[in-house]
């Protein structure tokens, strides 16, 4: 009797402990995803309405030049942010992998920006990039009078300041991922390649980096979803300005949904962002989950 009751607790306890999380996930993640998707097909404006209007909101969304501008900014920011982070992270990881002294300390320093919130990063870089108090002022005070670095107030260049701040924050993290990947490689492979006559450059370009493909995928996925969801960094750094020049989809979605009372368009933009994330994630998950069969 006692034994069977014990078994009952063993059986129910894990399910009991996990169930609140499951309910929260189902309602607040998947439930609201479905609800938002539904709203995007209605004529909701200030308050949700449940009158279906088909793809009208999507048509309006893609007729809106601000949305197209936000999408283009996302492309510029995403490509540069992911690309530069990967290159900088990989180079730092390779340099750090050369058995240098105080590696632990250096690794921690490079990883620290990741511990900051994007709001902090954005605020600090806003000051640094501000022409009247930041880098420009400093260089001018050194005596270089003609120095100009005012990207943050230049509508054509402001998006690149977002890239700078984003890279500063995330490249240390990418370095840590790559470093873990490099450490996972059997050192005798490097020795074998040296005996085969390869120099260090060839060892990295022909063997190590190609064999780190899964690591590249992981880094790419993580950076891509940071890029697509980027909201706080832009808000803190430029507030979407000057004008709408650094608008990104997340800001567009927030402003249309909650400030301009156009819930339908906001929901439609949110669905487009979700689709973008899925478009990247699904092929990745598909390729990751089917590899064990081949191996």
């Amino acid at each position, binding site marked *: 009797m006692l034994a069977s009751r014990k078994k009952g607790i063993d059986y129910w306890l894990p399910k009991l402990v996990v169930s609140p999380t499951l309910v929260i996930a189902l309602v607040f993640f998947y439930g609201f995803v479905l609800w938002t998707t539904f709203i995007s097909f209605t004529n909701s404006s200030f308050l949700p309405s449940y009158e279906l209007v088909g793809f009208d909101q999507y048509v309006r969304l893609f007729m809106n030049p601000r949305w197209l501008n936000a999408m283009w900014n996302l492309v510029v920011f995403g490509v540069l942010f992911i690309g530069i982070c990967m290159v900088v992270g990989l180079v730092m990881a390779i340099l750090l992998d050369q058995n240098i002294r105080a590696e632990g300390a250096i690794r921690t320093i490079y990883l620290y920006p990741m511990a900051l919130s994007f709001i902090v990063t954005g605020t600090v870089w806003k000051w640094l990039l501000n022409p009247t108090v930041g880098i420009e002022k400093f260089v001018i005070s050194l005596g270089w009078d003609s120095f100009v670095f005012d990207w943050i107030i230049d509508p054509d260049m402001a998006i690149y300041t977002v890239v700078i701040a984003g890279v500063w924050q995330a490249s240390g993290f990418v370095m840590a991922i790559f470093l873990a990947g490099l450490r996972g490689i059997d050192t005798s492979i490097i020795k074998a390649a040296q005996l085969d006559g390869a120099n260090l450059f060839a060892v990295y370009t022909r063997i190590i980096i190609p*064999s780190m493909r899964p690591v590249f995928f992981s880094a790419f996925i993580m950076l891509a979803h940071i890029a697509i969801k980027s909201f706080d960094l832009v808000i803190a750094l430029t507030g979407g300005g000057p004008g709408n020049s650094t608008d990104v989809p997340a800001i567009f979605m927030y402003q249309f949904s909650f400030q301009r009372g156009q819930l339908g368009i906001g929901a439609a933009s949110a669905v487009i962002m979700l689709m973008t994330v899925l478009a990247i994630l699904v092929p990745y998950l598909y390729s990751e989950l089917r590899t064990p069969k081949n191996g």
Partner: protein
Amino acid sequence: MAELKIDNVYKSFGEEHILKGISLDVTDGEFIILVGPSGCGKSTLLNCIAGLEDVTTGDILLGDTNVTYEAPKDRDIAMVFQSYALYPNMNVRKNIAFGLEIRKMPKAEIAEEVARVAKLLQIEPLLDRKPSQLSGGQRQRVAMGRALARRPKIYLFDEPLSNLDAKLRVEMRTEMKKLHQRLGTTIVYVTHDQIEAMTLADRIAVMKGGIVQQFGTPQEVYDDPANMFVAGFMGSPSMNFLRCEVTKQEKDYAVQIESQGTIFQLPVDPKQADLSSYVGKTVVLGIRPEQITHVMPHLVAEQYITQVPVKIEVTEPTGADTLILARINDQECECRVHPQEAGKVGESMELLFNMSKAVFFDEQTEARL
């Protein structure tokens, strides 16, 4: 192919001295095995030969050139690693061709060379597979193929068989020996497995504590060990070491053993050792299990054979022979007898001690007498 000369090589990591004056002369086409317990410096020595680690002092000569300060890629050496170290991103063909591509060999010649090696090692069906799709034995072959492709002056093997299961290891051992006989290449091979060393080597270097204890043919090392360490390390089951007192007989010497309360004098062959200065003192008698056998009538009368009754403490049948653990001089002593002659545990059994190959060691220095 070339000779290899290692001249008084020392290697230290800070205060830790790994190699303490290693000198070896390897002639062209010889199969040399470095054997020893882990931490004896054998892998470090191999890495020094390859150039993967710098020597602290001393010289390494390959053929007529001093390669001590040359980079690994300039030494023209190929190495097979314990973990095989195949390039995971390349298929087998590319793995074998990599070294040739780096050395800028024309494409057509590379294809020819890959085909030759693949045929030699019978890995043609595997050429388009990735290393992750190969079994341990197949990876081992590919690793050897990669070494063979470049036709280097000398091959280094770092415990190449230790990741294989027991049966495959024996097969690959035979295959490696055949391959060496066919190609006649100079090979330096590291292992901790003394059976591998005995079966494969032309000459064995037994190492311990960064020093070569003995360098000789397998039979020399087995029959004529330089010290107690070599004697105990080579051979399985290992040699019995019995501390016993030396006594003076009419004209020769003998060592005294006690079994079941009775004292026996085992005559010492003067060809094996001169114990004149040890009379009354204790020496270590080294006698291999196969020299203590069941009673064979045709041997009983021989000069250096003594019949001794012992008490059986443990029996270990191996199929071909049965090993018997007996107690001599209150020390354990392993004996090898025919399975049908073996008695039961607790019984007494007559055994023949054959002293014609027995060796003797100093109790303190462990050196051979």
